[in-house]
């Protein structure tokens, strides 16, 4: 079985905060029918502007929040509504790395406790063994043995992210979801952490869902890329295909925004007109039509389905 994870038509609505006098009942449409698969051993990159639902999707897959509609399958098993014990078993296989390692580590807990906690929670090892195992994993991500009894505030941001990765790694998961894991790091550290992700993947046969708004990072780490806009999938394609020849106008615009580190190189940037529409009232038809430079009347009326041609998926009436 090659497919590790399958998401089917995921929808997530949040009730919008309304004031006392506002006529209530408005809803934020964070995700509007997202379907995709993750193959064993691949790195799926997730890109999109802020607010497009990347993090919400990640949290739904990790069962940190429940979707309004749709189902998530892990190794063929529907995990969308699992309870307690069965969910705990799934959690061993799906681990999460958060964006901000200042927020994701308990400030009152020595890091050795944080990293050994997964073993203790799952009753895999006794406290003493759990500690030595945690020490081993920490040294694997580059935290020396002498530092393991320190507290998070004694570490740099990069080191903290290594600790957070060690925690995710502890249970030997099959899938790691990394939600903007390098966005809060210095550029010099970003490369180190990215390479650590790559290294660990080789070593432990991991599968990643890697979220970033940085297209360069996604290009570097991903095998396949999924482009999202307003809670919908715009395009899914193999890394090289997507970067060489985008099919969706939104992808094209995104790619044109990548800065080229060569002042002499001239290139035409596609400037998207207007603002991102609010998530409470989505545009009719194709959600991108309000800002698309190729938009035609059909785009306003009809929602484009996610179509496949030669292994590439896109949701557009007039693919490039």
């Amino acid at each position, binding site marked *: 079985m090659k497919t590790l994870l399958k998401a089917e038509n995921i929808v997530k609505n949040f009730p919008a905060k309304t004031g006392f006098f506002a006529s209530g009942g408005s809803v934020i449409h964070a995700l509007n029918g997202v379907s995709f698969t993750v193959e064993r051993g691949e790195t799926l990159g997730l890109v999109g502007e802020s607010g497009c639902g990347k993090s919400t999707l990640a949290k739904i897959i990790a069962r*940190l929040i429940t979707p309004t509609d749709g189902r998530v399958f892990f190794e063929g098993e529907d995990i969308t509504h699992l309870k307690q014990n069965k969910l705990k078993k799934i959690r061993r296989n799906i681990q999460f790395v*958060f964006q901000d390692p200042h927020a994701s580590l308990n400030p009152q807990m020595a890091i050795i406790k944080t990293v050994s906690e997964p073993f203790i929670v799952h009753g895999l090892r006794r406290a003493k063994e759990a500690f030595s195992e945690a020490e081993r994993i920490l040294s694997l991500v580059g935290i020396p043995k002498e530092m393991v009894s320190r507290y998070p505030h004694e570490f740099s941001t990069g080191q903290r992210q290594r600790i957070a990765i060690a925690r995710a790694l502890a249970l030997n998961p099959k899938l790691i979801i990394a939600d903007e894991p390098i966005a809060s790091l210095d550029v010099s550290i970003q490369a180190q952490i990215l390479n650590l992700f790559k290294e660990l993947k080789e070593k432990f046969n991991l599968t990643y869902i890697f979220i970033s708004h940085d297209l360069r990072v996604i290009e570097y780490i991903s095998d396949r890329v999924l482009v999202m806009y307003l809670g919908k999938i715009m395009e899914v394609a193999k890394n090289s295909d997507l970067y060489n020849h985008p099919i969706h106008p939104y992808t094209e615009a995104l790619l044109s925004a990548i800065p080229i580190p060569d002042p002499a190189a001239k290139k035409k940037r596609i400037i998207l007109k207007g603002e991102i529409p609010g998530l409470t009232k989505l545009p009719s038809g194709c959600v991108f039509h309000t800002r698309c430079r190729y938009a035609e009347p059909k785009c306003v009326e009809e929602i484009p389905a996610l179509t496949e041609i030669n292994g590439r998926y896109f949701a557009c009436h007039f693919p490039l």
Partner: protein
Amino acid sequence: MFWKRFKKNKLALTGAILVFGLLVIAILAPFVSPYDPNIINMDDVLQAPGSRHILGTDDLGRDILSRMIYGTRISLSVGFVAIAIATIIGIILGSLAGYYGKLIDSLIMRLVDIMLSVPTFFLLLTIIAIVGPSIWIVMFVIGLTGWMSIARLVRAEFLTLKEREFVLAARSIGASDARIIFKHILPNAMSPVYVSFILGVAGAILMESGLSFLGFGVQPPTPSWGNILTAGREYMEVAWWLIFFPGLAILLTCLSYYILGEGIRQALDPKLKI
């Protein structure tokens, strides 16, 4: 870090030393008091403070200093036990309300509102009038009526902390609710509780003194600052020392707890520059 900031605050340090001194006196009462607090000596009735009796004697010739030293034991233990009960109840209910939210939160918070509307002192008087005065009753009733502010504090901390990513991270490794509450959220929610605990002890000491003064608290001959005051009231005009020293002890004790509590609050507040 905490110590460094706390040490800079001279007033708070004074409070800490006084509070610590009182604790030592209470523990070492049999060794530091010059006389047995309950020995009646009719030859030494209503002696003014002097070389034999530093703080004078009462109408039965008992040494005031010794009685006050033993009274420290009563006052402090009532204060600590009562507030410990209040804190435990407050932490449990506050955690449940803050963590689970929704119906549980509404129920617990309405209970808090109801309890806050009850005048504690008169509730105490009523209960003691029914079941009879006892130091244990005083402790429990003060504890059972004093948990509301702590519950509110803990709930507020939980509301912000439960959204933090380290809590999500704990959930993603499969940690149980109990584990998340006690190992992850609570340790990060404790600093306002410490302050509230110290301030609460002062309040409880004051309340115990008031009750004992009215005769509803610690019963004579067991000495307590409140009932030494009561006994001295009748002789107020001829023997000022009978009410002056217990009153001063209550005042200074409460004051030192308040400045200690305030000092801890300031030292824990990272936004405050000291």
